[in-house]
């Protein structure tokens, strides 16, 4: 059941709920009750009424200095003798509150396309809108009726989806306010990822061997073993700034791509390579990685973007897969550099020449690998709600974890593959998960 909330101007500290709900919530005979709205808890006098079984009245003194919009339907629940009204969820975005205006924050409505199954108050805010002391936030509440944001001061949410990275000091302050109930704030680089994953028994066989670029001796050894390596920026995304280094006899070739064009530099010996790299690149910012002989389709490199989300039950779940094809002869398979995408399933069926059983097994193997990656990241203390993992398949059909796109992975890749349903599913996932974090989600809770 969902309820509207009406504020009654009064100092009686009273909450009045429909008589018919008293029984359902086992509140018969109670005189007082603790109510919880977002992170705010207050003691209230409990009363009941018969005038509208969809309405809860709250006296204004209980909502001091904040507003609880009346255009929203809230869910309620009782846990440990506390009456929870919610969910109250938040989205922390970049910028300053003074710079926010409706056209600017319009794009964030995309996350609320399935608001009908979220309900409650959703507040969009910036760092400077948080009042840690009073546990309030100055921001914009979502009005589902006219699908517009409304500015105001609201209770601080019990779960927050971070659309920006935050400083360690802010992290500590948030933690004090809502514990671990905020997600997607961590950034990690490729080297950190490699260090974590390579220690995992289940993942190490799916990881390309990787060394730090500044350690030239290691790079040389890697070249001796594999003849072909990638030099990648630690923090890069979308395949930008990647070099391929290959060795034929004593000669080395460095290939790279600038503005959709392929370039090549020939270097006569290892000393020349070393000199070139040390002068051209700030090697501290790079890693060097074994080149995986990824499967090619008509000379186009392919890999799979696996989209993994925390679902409405708090469980990791793969919402879909998109296969990316690189531009012909490009060293990378990124769509922004001229490639194309198609639904992951179709690509696998083609790869197995129509043998859908093999395709299904491989599909599920990819799903499992992606979820294992997420579990390892989680075990390192990273709280993520949705993530894009690039998984490649080599000529022996072995799987390789190529890259992790976290914090704010671009989900429009689903649209590149013309998969609108996947795009919507992914976009609506963070708030389904936030609702679960706030204690209002889960299939069971949702039931009655």
């Amino acid at each position, binding site marked *: 059941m969902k309820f509207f909330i009406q504020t009654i101007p009064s100092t009686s500290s009273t909450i009045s709920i429909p008589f018919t709900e008293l029984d359902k919530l086992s509140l018969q005979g109670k005189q007082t009750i603790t109510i919880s709205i977002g992170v705010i808890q207050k003691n209230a006098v409990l009363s009941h009424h018969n005038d509208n079984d969809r309405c809860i009245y709250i006296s204004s003194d209980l909502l001091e200095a904040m507003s609880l919009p009346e255009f929203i339907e809230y869910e309620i629940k009782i846990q440990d003798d506390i009456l929870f009204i919610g969910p109250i969820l938040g989205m922390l975005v970049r910028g300053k509150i003074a710079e926010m205006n409706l056209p600017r924050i319009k794009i964030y409505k995309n996350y609320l396309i399935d608001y009908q199954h979220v309900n409650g108050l959703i507040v969009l805010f910036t760092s400077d809108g948080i009042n840690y002391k009073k546990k309030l936030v100055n921001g914009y509440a979502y009005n589902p009726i006219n699908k517009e944001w409304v500015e105001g001061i609201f209770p601080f949410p019990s779960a927050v989806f971070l659309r920006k990275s935050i400083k360690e000091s802010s992290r500590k302050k948030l933690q004090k306010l809502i514990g671990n109930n905020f997600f997607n704030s961590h950034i990690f680089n490729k080297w950190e990822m490699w260090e974590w994953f390579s220690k995992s*028994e289940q993942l190490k066989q799916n990881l390309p061997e990787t060394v730090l670029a500044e350690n030239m001796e290691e790079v040389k050894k890697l070249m001796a073993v594999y003849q072909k390596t990638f030099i990648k920026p630690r923090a890069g995304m979308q395949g930008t700034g990647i070099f391929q280094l290959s060795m034929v006899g004593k000669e080395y070739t460095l290939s790279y791509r600038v503005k959709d064009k392929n370039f090549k530099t020939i270097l006569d010996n290892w000393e020349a390579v070393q000199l070139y790299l040390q002068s051209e690149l700030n090697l501290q910012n790079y890693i060097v990685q074994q080149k995986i002989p990824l499967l090619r389709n008509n000379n186009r490199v392919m890999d799979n973007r696996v989209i993994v989300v925390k*679902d409405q039950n708090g469980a990791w779940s793969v919402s879909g897969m998109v296969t990316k094809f690189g531009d012909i002869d490009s060293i990378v398979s990124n769509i922004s550099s001229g490639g194309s995408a198609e639904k992951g399933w179709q690509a696998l069926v083609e790869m197995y020449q129509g043998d*859908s*059983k093999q395709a*299904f097994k491989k599909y599920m*193997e990819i799903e499992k690998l992606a979820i294992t990656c997420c579990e390892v990241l989680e075990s390192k203390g990273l709280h993520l709600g949705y993530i894009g993992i690039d998984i490649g398949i080599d000529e022996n059909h072995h799987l390789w974890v190529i890259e992790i796109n976290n914090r704010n992975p671009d989900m429009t890749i689903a649209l590149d593959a013309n998969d609108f*349903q996947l795009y919507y599913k992914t976009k609506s996932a963070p708030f389904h998960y936030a609702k679960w974090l706030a204690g209002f989600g889960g299939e069971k809770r*949702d039931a*009655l």
Partner: protein
Amino acid sequence: MLYEVNAEALSSNSLFLPESTAKSFGIENKQTVTLSFGKRKIPVTVNKVHSTNDSRIFVSKNVRSELLIDTNVKYEMAYSNNELILGPIIGLLLGKSDVRLQKYLQNYLIYTMLYEQINGVLFVFCEQQIDFANEKITGYVFDPSTPDNWRKAELPFPRAVFRRVELSKKTLTGLQEKIGAGFFNAQYFDKWQFWNWMSPYEELGKHLAETTNKVTLTNVNTFIEKYNGVYLKPKNGSRGQGIYYISKKENQYLILENYQDNIQQLSSEQMTKFLSKHSFFLLQQPIHLHTFEDRKVDYRVILQKDGTGHWQCTGIIARFGNTNAISSNFKANGFAMEGTLALMTQFGYDELTAFKKNQEIISICTKMACTIDDIAGAYADLGIDIGIDKDGKVWVIEMNKRPDHDFPLFINDRKMYYSVKSNPVLYAKYIAMGN
């Protein structure tokens, strides 16, 4: 991590674990733990061993024989509350008799597609192979190293059983008692029970057609007055067989039987007599489903639990029925389409509107499935038929407990088909490993 089990002449009740495994579980040397294999348990003393091979464990011979451990397959282990689970042990109750089971063994291979992710003992069995007195089952274990892929073996009662076949009442209650909630899709129920369970909840009842099991002339008249007509349906029927539509015209009752062309005209007296022959039927409010070019359309929602342990929608398939039938439960003369696409075709929705309607359908079905779980025990594989009326309102028509798994094939979606077959097994593993 996978383990191979070796039975050796060791002192009884002993278990030798690789050091690294014992360490990861926090088990001390000489600690006594309960070793479980399916529903069987035995206390064992753990000995840590240093070994170059971390994937072998050793048990004494009495442990193997008392637990009925199959040493030809590889296992996973899980540990909590001093219980070490060796597994999974999953039973699929698929055949009606041993003869039929043997005949269809090759067909059952589809349930083993993801065995590389499942491991342990995955077996099929039938009612007559259950030995309640000795608490064991003779079944066919999936074993790709054998020529037929299946090997006959004596097994303990499993922790997870998926049922897809008729059972005697005695076996049903026997298994429920022994296996508990791990025996899923166990209890079947009819349309009347379904209505009785759901209708008390306002949120759920509003998506169901009003139903009564009191088939009287008075009730027929009440329904006709309220809804202009009424369905007379068998409690257990499926595929639209034996459904009548009753309406009234100038004191005459008009009866139309599904898939038949002729209309019977009956007087009140004849109607009373007709109803008395159908006293075990139900009367139900007719829902005016939105049609597509005169075809009735309904949607099969495949709701299953998977490896996460939760309900998920595996897929939705719309059936566009025969133009004249009063239900769309019809394979001939109709066609099928993927759910989202069908919503766009039938209602002219754009992708976003179709997504939202899809979410709404899944949400309603999931709520009902959770309620059924609470009332009638665990389920993990349901086929829910829903319809959508002219106003876009979702009506739940029926919940099938042993759903036809072939629906995805009607739209030629192999991925969905394999998922439908794999999900109950993935869920069984979730249960069997103690989650």
